[in-house]
């Protein structure tokens, strides 16, 4: 993956002003944006996805310009081909697991999945071990199953990039370990580049090939790292230095 991001965005809410001004480039396939809550991580990936308009800047993914304020380019979210897994998954509560995963293939107005598509969706669900839940609704699923549905829904369209917003924050510690491993497996299986945002230092050990440290809307440092280096970094972060 070749990603080039430069974003400036001023946000004001309830009298407080937040100023995000960041730029980074990465050729790694696993980027982690790490920082405390309120540091601008979510705004950053929402901008990459096209859910927010920055005041200025550029977002270029694999040579394709997604956003360029000066050139007047702003592809809508639906045309960016970027997968996104929300922190609380944002599964459609009124649709079954199969319809959630196959949402992109549903008609604009009404009706279920077309027969020809349904087989494809079911095969995909099988690869996520979700086929037995195809007719279940999100409220009937456990936290881990919900996350798997969200991942399957994002990946079935073969996105050029997968964005994950605090993917493990909503899970209990035991499940968190398991789902981290699952995400690594998925990454290997689909060869999809990912950007994960997190405030949990433990996530770094698993994921960051390229690390962006964010604080109060600014980049503190960026680095490519090996797993051993990350171990040392985590110790530093946990000891608070």
């Amino acid at each position: 993956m070749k990603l080039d991001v430069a974003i400036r965005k001023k946000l004001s809410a309830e009298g407080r002003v937040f100023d995000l001004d960041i730029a980074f480039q990465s050729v790694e396939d696993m980027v982690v944006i790490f920082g405390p809550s309120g540091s601008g991580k979510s705004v950053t990936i929402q901008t990459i996805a096209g859910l927010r308009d920055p005041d200025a800047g550029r977002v270029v993914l694999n040579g394709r310009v997604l956003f360029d304020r000066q050139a007047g380019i702003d592809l809508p979210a639906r045309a960016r081909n970027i997968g996104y897994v929300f922190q609380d998954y944002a599964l459609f509560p009124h649709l079954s697991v199969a319809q959630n995963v196959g949402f992109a293939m549903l008609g604009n107005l009404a009706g279920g999945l077309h027969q020809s598509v349904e087989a494809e969706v079911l095969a995909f669900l099988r690869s996520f071990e979700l086929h037995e839940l195809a007719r279940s609704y999100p409220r009937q699923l456990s936290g881990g199953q919900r996350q798997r549905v969200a991942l399957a829904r994002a990946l079935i369209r073969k996105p050029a990039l997968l964005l994950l917003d605090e993917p493990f924050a909503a899970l209990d510690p035991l499940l968190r370990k398991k789902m981290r491993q699952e995400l690594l497996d998925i990454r290997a299986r689909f060869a999809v580049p990912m950007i994960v945002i997190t405030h949990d230092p433990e996530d770094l050990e698993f994921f960051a090939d390229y690390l962006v440290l964010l604080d109060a809307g600014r980049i503190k440092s960026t680095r490519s790292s090996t797993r051993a280096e990350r171990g040392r970094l985590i110790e530093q972060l946990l000891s608070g230095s």
Partner: protein
Amino acid sequence: MPALNEALTPLLLTLKVAAWATLIAFVFALAWAYVLTRYRVWGRETIDAIFTLPMVLPPTVLGYYLLVLVGRRSLIGIWLEDTMGIRLIFTWQGAALAASIVAFPLVYKAARAAMQDVEHQLEKAARLLGANETKVFFRVTLPLAWRGVLAGTMLAFARAMGEFGATLMIAGSIPGKTQTMSIAIYEAVQAGRDDVANFLVVLTSLVCIAILLASGKLLQRRY
């Protein structure tokens, strides 16, 4: 049974008028509720107040506005009659228009509240999955707001069925043509026809109770 025969004509007319009125109110209320909850519209509060006005204004005032706006000497009235051949004064179409305006706030308020409750994040998720705005509306927003919208629509239907003041002013009370149930009841009481009045009153009450019960059922959460 003379009362039944005399009740049937106004009943059928009332159902026709109320159905058209509800349909018109439904389409406009849904569109405006969506626009006002999803986009930044200049003067939103004022528009909201105007849309709620038919709920609090005396129906006679609404009827008067309508007479001025679409009467035969008004610009709209002349245009409607010349180009489309539609005359609204003393016709059932006029009654339907009056009832639709009185019923509009009920659908609009319910639709607005229901759409406000739909999580924006779900609409964002749909866009990220390649959905255009039509698909976002029909596949996410509307299905999730549906029960609230439907409950409001049923209330609007009940309200349209009971419309009296504005309808009387714009459509009059022509038996078989514009005399709806509520007007027929008034006429029957005036003429001392208690049997007809009793029958119409009971019938109206039963239909309205049925609608309220059904809309109450629809409001219970399912997901």
